[in-house]
């Protein structure tokens, strides 16, 4: 009846515990396999979706517009799946966009740094010292990714209901803790929490509809009422608001659209230098 979202500083450990927890709870496991469906449905390369999920924005990498669209597609698909309940989700960054939903247990797994370094050293055939540095680099990069794309520091424990250190507890013990924690009534779905999740899913669908044509947009939904925030040059504000309203209004489940367009100061500054 609930949802577990697992995040970890080690993808391997996160996946292992998420899969074991799903098995133990009799829930569905939702992981990177979903990217195959997203790629097929929207005719985008799966490896590009992986890249958007794993690599921090850089000058030579994927453009922010393309990355924004790919992440929006993944978010929409993941939220759609989470509406089905009884799911353990890992590897789709759901801990950064499933926020404020009381029947979602958000868990952070901290891998044992030495064990991680040994695993990397074995896998990549490098020295333990080099492996330790790689593990540290990956943690920093992952934290930067979460801040760049969702403005949330994923390493901040206050974002989670449960933080388990594998330096102190084994994977099986971590799974037992998840099962036990889900026994608390506070993680049962209720009218309010189900509505929060539906609102997030509707906002994600509207965002996907808008992001290709309008670039960066912030979308919030409350019932069928949707609020969109975006930027435009002063002279384009009215037209943009009308266009956004038209596109968003066509998304199923949307009854009313409110658009806030603020002045795009960066574009304005760029134009004034021409």
């Amino acid at each position: 009846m609930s949802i577990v979202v697992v995040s970890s500083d080690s993808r391997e450990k996160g996946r292992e515990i998420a899969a074991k927890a799903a098995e133990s709870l009799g829930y569905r496991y939702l992981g990177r396999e979903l990217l195959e469906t997203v790629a097929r449905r929207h005719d985008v390369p799966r490896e590009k979706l992986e890249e958007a999920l794993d690599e921090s924005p850089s000058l030579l990498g994927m453009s922010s517009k393309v990355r924004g669209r790919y992440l929006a597609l993944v978010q929409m698909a993941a939220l759609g799946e989470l509406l089905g309940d009884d799911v353990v989700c890992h590897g789709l960054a759901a801990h950064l966009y499933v926020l404020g939903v009381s029947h979602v247990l958000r868990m952070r797994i901290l891998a044992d740094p030495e064990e991680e370094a040994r695993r990397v050293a074995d896998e990549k055939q490098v020295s333990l010292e080099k492996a330790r540095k790689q593990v540290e680099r990956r943690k920093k990069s992952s934290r930067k990714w979460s801040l760049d794309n969702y403005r949330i520091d994923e390493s901040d424990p206050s974002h989670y209901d449960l933080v388990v250190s594998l330096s102190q507890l084994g994977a099986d013990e971590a799974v037992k803790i998840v099962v036990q924690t889900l026994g608390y009534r506070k993680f049962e779905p209720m009218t309010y929490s189900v509505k929060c999740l539906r609102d997030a899913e509707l906002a994600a669908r509207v965002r996907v509809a808008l992001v290709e044509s309008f670039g960066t947009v912030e979308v919030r939904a409350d019932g069928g009422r949707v609020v969109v925030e975006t930027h435009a040059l002063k002279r384009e504000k009215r037209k943009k608001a009308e266009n956004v309203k038209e596109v968003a209004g066509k998304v199923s489940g949307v009854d009313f659209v409110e658009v806030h367009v603020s002045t795009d100061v960066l574009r304005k500054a760029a134009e004034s230098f021409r």
Partner: protein
Amino acid sequence: MRGAPPESGEGGRERGWIGCMKTRNDSKETEMSEEINVLLLDDEPIVGKRLKPALAKIGCQVEVFEEPAKALERLDEKEFDIVVTDIRMDEIDGMQVLDHVRKKSSRTKVIMITGYAMMSLAREAMEKGAFDFIAKPFQPNDLRRVIAKAAEALGSSIDFESAAGHDA
């Protein structure tokens, strides 16, 4: 899951349960009742005014209160099937009402409604034994759907769909 016949009350208190014989002890008056007894508490008069007829349509006998203290007094007199309470009120808040009901009756379903919904509050209410938690504003149908669920949990059934159809 029907409950046992009502126990004799004390000092003229009445106890009712869904779909069963209801007894008033002092007067020895008995009556058959299929109605679901709902106590609705909200300090905004418009809420009770709007929801009372909406719940009556699905067979609920609704008593509306705007003052929490008076609602608590009534809860001491009678075991309701369902209590619907606002959370943020002066003097006594909805969480205190929930605690009060939980001490008096394990079978009464408590539905919390609030215009200040947030995750921590929702979790606290559920952990304290609320049956459900609804954010305001909501449509009467949203509450009726939850009331129907609560009635089902109490072993009764409500024709929620036909009432919803009437409103459509």
